[in-house]
């Protein structure tokens, strides 16, 4: 009952990533490390944007290594471009529900309204991104992954552009939603405070090597040498 990365090796240009670990289903895990250490590459491997050279990915025992991003039980929030700016929020969410045609079928409208209400955007279906604040845009993107209904949620620093209090608010909202849906969440962040706030467990990525999840508070209070250098002794 878990997300398994079994002796994974992946390559992006000259950069190599190795990972061998297990994330418990329903866990909330932070991924921290210096920029260029391979945090986003790790998410790309899990989401299916980067094929692996060797090893296997499994979700609840089923192999997902060969699946395309859309077939995987995984949804992802990118740093930017999470919704199409020329479509209304409602049209965007209809595409998430029905990626074959993008049409709103029977009952879709109700589901869209419901998901918007859950992220605090009731009545926003007719708006476009340009008519919304940064925080509202993040909420709309969250509504999108809610509707996709995939059990694993990957967050690639999607709230990095928000101010500190808005970011904290969004992380709390993600926690709340993940709790209710029973999602397994992996959050990439360069901010150790995010990890403390959001995730009981943390994965450290260092020069392409991914370590197994450890308890966040313990890890940050007693960082290994590489992490200590990155945190600058303030973690």
């Amino acid at each position, binding site marked *: 009952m878990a997300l398994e990365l079994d002796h994974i090796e992946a390559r992006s240009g000259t950069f190599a990533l190795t990972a061998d670990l297990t994330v418990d289903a329903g866990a909330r895990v932070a991924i921290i490390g210096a920029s260029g250490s391979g945090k986003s590459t790790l998410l790309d491997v899990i989401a299916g*944007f980067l094929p692996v050279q060797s090893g296997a990915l499994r979700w609840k025992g089923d192999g997902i290594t060969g699946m395309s991003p859309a077939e995987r039980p995984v949804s992802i929030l*990118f740093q930017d471009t999470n919704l199409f700016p020329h479509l209304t929020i409602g049209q965007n969410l209809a595409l998430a529900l029905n990626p074959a045609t993008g049409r709103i079928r029977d009952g879709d409208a109700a589901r869209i309204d419901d998901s918007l209400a859950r992220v605090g955007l009731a009545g926003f279906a007719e708006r476009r991104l340009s008519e919304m604040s940064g925080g509202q845009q993040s909420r709309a993107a969250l509504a999108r992954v809610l509707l996709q209904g995939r059990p694993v949620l990957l967050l690639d620093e999607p709230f990095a552009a928000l101010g500190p209090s808005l970011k904290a608010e969004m992380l709390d909202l993600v926690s709340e939603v993940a709790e209710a849906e029973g999602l397994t969440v992996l959050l990439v962040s360069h901010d150790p405070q995010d990890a403390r706030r959001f995730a009981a467990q943390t994965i450290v990525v260092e020069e392409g090597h991914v370590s197994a999840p450890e308890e966040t508070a313990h890890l940050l209070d007693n960082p290994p040498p590489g992490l200590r250098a990155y945190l600058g002794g303030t973690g």
Partner: protein
Amino acid sequence: MAARPVSIIAALTVAGLVIGPVAAVILRAEAFGGFRPADWQALRFTLLQATLSALLSVLFAIPVARALARRQFPGRGMLVALLGAPFILPVIVAVLGLLAVFGQSGLLNRALEPLGLPELQIYGLQGVLLAHVFFNLPLATRLILQGWLAIPAEQFRLAATLGMGRRAMWRAVEAPMLRRIVPGAFAVVFVICLSSFAVALTLGGGPRATTLELAIYQSMRFDFDLARAAMLGLLQLGLALSAGLIALRVTAVPVAAKGLDRRVPRWDRTDRRAICTDAFWVGLAALFLLTPLAMVTFNGLSGITTLGASVWQAAGHSILVALGSTALCLLWALPLATRWGEWLGLSGIALSPLVLGIGLFLIVRPFANPFELALYVTATVNAFVSLPFVLRILRPEAEAIRTDYTRLRAALGLSGWAWLRWVFLPRLKRPLGFAAGLTAALSMGDLGVIALFADPDRATLPLKVYQLMGAYRMEQAAGGALLLLLLSLGLFWMFDRGGRVGS
């Protein structure tokens, strides 16, 4: 990706449209030993007029571009916008306008007559050059204006702090820029004029002013000598191909150049003499470009009410041809809006429409009467000729859409159809509208292949106007030209506007 087979089909039909007709022409061509003196003369004239046209266009473009680059005056924006208009102006309309100004009973001759000066003759080399400069002076001006505007403002600021005079400024800043830009502008105009057909047809002619394209037309239309037409076509093909390749190395054609409405801030423009020079050139260029158009409009107003049913029928044909070729061109362009697709599309510049027309004629003839298919052939050839411009317009935006949204598309698992319907086409709407407008207007005004094939029942509007002109029914010709002008601009406006609404 589901789009793959579609791009391959599009690429194959375009490649087939190049290779098929060219092969047909090669197979049919006489041995090159069969060159007659008239053929050599056509080759010589083609090269001569293209060289002179390019030279004159560029020469006059330099002072006009400089004036536009350094002056601010009311109507400047309009004038710069107008410089883009000849691209979609039907040749026959411009020719009628030039005749109204420079022709036998035109404005200029009427002004010269009381002074006892000799009458100006427009037909021949001078007429061909006049029309080519009319069409290409604006293009050359835009190219050179771009060069001027690309000079970094720091250079002018530096020149100002050094207190550099006009001469020093010219030597240090402006001349080096022109040395870079002018060869390219010359090459572009030269290549365009090499394949000149409609201008030579209407203002040239006779053994001393016949281009290769016109010679192809004559051997087809008057002598029905297919072998000779094919041989000339082959010669034209070689010429355009080599010149095109050279031009491609020297320059890039701006179709929708942006940012030309800026002005370079300079500190040396209070000079009185310079102001007068600039005013002179801008005024002359505006007069040269606007008077013929004003005359067409003025003369056409009375003629447009007298148009017969056959003219309206021709207008209907033209609209159908324009819409058909626009649809076909976009069907090709959408899957081909990639780097290699643009290379393929460039064959549309190198291959002359008349050669293509002869080739299609040869291919179709064993199966059907080519004259009955005249309108279809015209629409196909027009789509092909517009393709390089359309690809130049669409490709940057199409590629940006693909790179910006591939990850989101994959994360959502959008089908090819949903991608096209909800993302690709909506986001491409603006350049798509502009490209469709250009294609429709170009096709609407085209007087090329249709002249090879058409019988009276299948004339397009430009051909009809040409026939009216040839029959000296000038009032009706002017009316038809005004109708053609309105339809071309109207189609362009409609499509371009359609692309802008709600985006």
